[in-house]
């Protein structure tokens, strides 16, 4: 009797779940494939971001059109973002169950690089070499000049200004050249509007990393060892601390630029500007509907007038995993998808990613496309910034112990530096942080 009841209750619940579930399994958003062709080589692909599925399957279709002699049947599996990398790492390590290719986020990339789980793709990239910003490709590489991955975007860092606030304060972002100018402007903004000029994250590293890269300083040294205790790093920390003391800079609500508290704050016009890479445009269009037509994109400030005004940040490198049975095909497909005109155009149009391929920066069909939701959202054209800065761009060094270092930076270092131990000497603090890194 009781068991029957139990069985009955569960069966009802199950039937309920099943009947609703039918639609979900077939819609293709969870696991994607391209249009399979007869005799196509099967490739498996792992990503952690659902938006990437459409990109990969579309690119596989384009590839099959252009290379009828080497067709691909691609299956893209989306994982849960936090643990996909962990699982991929263990799959590589144990030699069981790894896919042919995978998207690897920049923070984790070092772990894969360090233990040699990826295949060099130099030969596949060769044909595209002169058309793309190579520092974006070679950063996913080692000291011997091999590179292993290609990003979805250039990841050029820019300054996003809320023009409502800037106008109210009477500051023209175009006049801001150096960080000192930026701070001065910030004081005016604070005085006139009561709002902070910018925010810094305690659970991520974009703002300090941008300033570090402008000083040509890295978090790991040439051998790949953690290198947090540098003059430059201490200077950056002290500079940001000073901005916080002045009230020009705030701790980002929620602790990071990808939290709901922050999006709400940003959308409500709580802060005058954000320093983030261009791929962050998508967050504006998705989460800050109220700022439509109010945001302008300008180059980031620099330390000294005349400095190179561009750095690359964030990103996801796609790589071919060692042990695949179709090395050459996977490599060629990867380079094609990420570096061809077709691929970069898709990335810009659909995902709002700044193209790694420079010819697109001058292509009026791209840069003046009135229907593009990203171009329509912002009052200035991001391509103007890209063109002005050229291709001599500083990329972060993500080799060696970068992953372990990154994990420490985003969990403790900046939280300590800006929120918890604000009075501790920067060098001393960094030494303590460096000592705690396990690599």
């Amino acid at each position: 009797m009781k068991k029957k009841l139990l069985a009955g209750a569960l069966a009802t619940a199950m039937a309920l779940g099943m009947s609703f579930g039918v639609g979900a399994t077939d819609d293709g958003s969870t696991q994607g494939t391209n249009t399979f062709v007869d005799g196509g080589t099967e490739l498996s692909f792992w990503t952690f971001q659902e938006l990437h599925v459409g990109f990969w399957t579309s690119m596989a279709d384009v590839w099959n059109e252009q290379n009828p002699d080497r067709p691909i049947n691609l299956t893209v599996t989306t994982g849960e973002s936090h643990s996909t990398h962990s699982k991929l790492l263990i799959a590589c390590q144990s030699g069981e169950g790894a896919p042919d290719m995978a998207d690897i986020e920049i923070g984790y990339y070092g772990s894969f690089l360090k233990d040699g789980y990826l295949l060099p793709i130099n030969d596949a990239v060769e044909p595209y070499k002169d058309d793309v910003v190579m520092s974006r490709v070679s950063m996913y590489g080692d000291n011997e000049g091999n590179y292993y991955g290609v990003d979805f975007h250039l990841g050029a860092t820019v300054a996003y200004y809320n023009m409502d606030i800037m106008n109210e304060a009477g500051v023209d972002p175009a006049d801001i050249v150096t960080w000192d100018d930026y701070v001065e402007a910030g004081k005016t903004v604070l005085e006139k509007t009561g709002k902070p000029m910018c925010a810094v994250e305690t659970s991520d590293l974009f703002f300090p990393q941008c300033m570090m890269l402008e000083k040509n300083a890295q978090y790991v040294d040439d051998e790949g060892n953690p290198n947090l205790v540098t003059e430059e790093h201490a200077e950056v920390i002290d500079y940001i601390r000073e901005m916080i003391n002045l009230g020009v800079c705030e701790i980002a609500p929620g602790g990071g630029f990808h939290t709901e508290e922050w999006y709400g704050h940003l959308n409500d016009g709580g802060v005058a500007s954000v320093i983030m890479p261009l791929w962050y445009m998508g967050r504006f269009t998705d989460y800050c509907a109220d700022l439509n037509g109010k945001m302008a994109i300008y180059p980031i400030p620099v330390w000294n007038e005349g400095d190179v005004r561009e750095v690359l940040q964030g990103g996801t490198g796609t790589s071919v995993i060692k042990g695949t049975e179709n090395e050459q095909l996977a490599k060629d497909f990867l380079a094609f998808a990420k570096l061809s005109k077709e691929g970069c155009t898709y990335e810009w149009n659909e995902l709002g990613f700044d193209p790694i391929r420079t010819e697109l920066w001058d292509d009026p069909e791209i840069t003046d496309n009135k229907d593009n939701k990203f171009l329509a959202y912002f009052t200035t054209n991001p391509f103007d910034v890209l063109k002005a800065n050229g291709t001599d761009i500083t990329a972060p060094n993500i080799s060696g112990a970068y992953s372990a270092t990154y994990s420490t930076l985003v969990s403790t270092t900046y939280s300590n530096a800006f929120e918890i131990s604000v009075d501790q000497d920067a060098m001393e603090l960094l030494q303590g942080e460096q000592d705690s890194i396990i690599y």
Partner: protein
Amino acid sequence: MKKQSVVKKFLYSQKVAPYVFVMPFILTFAIFFAYSIVSMILMSFQKVAGANTTFIGLENYKILTNAVFLKSLKNSVFYTIVTCIMMIPIPMILAAMLNSKHMRAKGTFRSILFIPALTSVVVAGVVFRLMFGELEGSFMNQVMNLFGVEPIIWLRKPVTVWITLFFLCLWRWTGVNMMYYLSGLQQIPADLYESASIDGATGMQQLRYITIPLLKPTTIYVLTISIFGGMAMFSESYMLFNGNKSPNNVATTLVGMLYRMGFEQNQLGIASAIGVIFLLIVLAVNMIQLRINGTIGSKKGE
């Protein structure tokens, strides 16, 4: 019955039957548990990089001197101690009150208090994460506002992070522990109380001299599960901070550290060493428990 095959006869004999019954345990124990423990101990002495493993002696155990590891150990112990202190008296008193003959609608309250335990740690974590959000309109900040307190950034300051974690624990587990105590209470003969009240004992005295001593076996059980639950805490912190990344490792626990090393940074050797240390701690706590309270296994004899 007459023409049983030898095999069948063997399997059906009274000598062999018990082994058939416990076979599922022997198999899962050997395959999953024993194998895992042994491979973990072996791995803790190795460096595992790519396909290569090299024996490196006690190198991995150097983690014992790492500041972050020590912090995670401290966090786990702190959490365990505080939850044990909270999760025994509160449910016990609630159970005693609920069991009182003056109480009405016992079943309803019992069920309501148990409901949080039915929610997944994911759901609970999401709700608490939002309730303790730093926005002015987050529920807890609204409550604080009633007392004239400025909005608090709950999840980024050590003290408030711990308060949130303890609230979460209290919310989810009070009902469960109360259930254990209720079942313990039902075994205390009612005439004990009757004779006590005839002797003029007050409610307080009854609680002190009858209820608490007679609930000792239940308390031991609750204490045991609270200790292991506390030491193994990870998912709560994972949900509250949307990943294994509490600010400044305020709420990074031993398991969090193990997860970070083993799954996030591919330091299998170090992760195994943490596992071994963890195992040793658990066994040590057990030994102490056994010494003080006698085995759980012999509880039925009490």
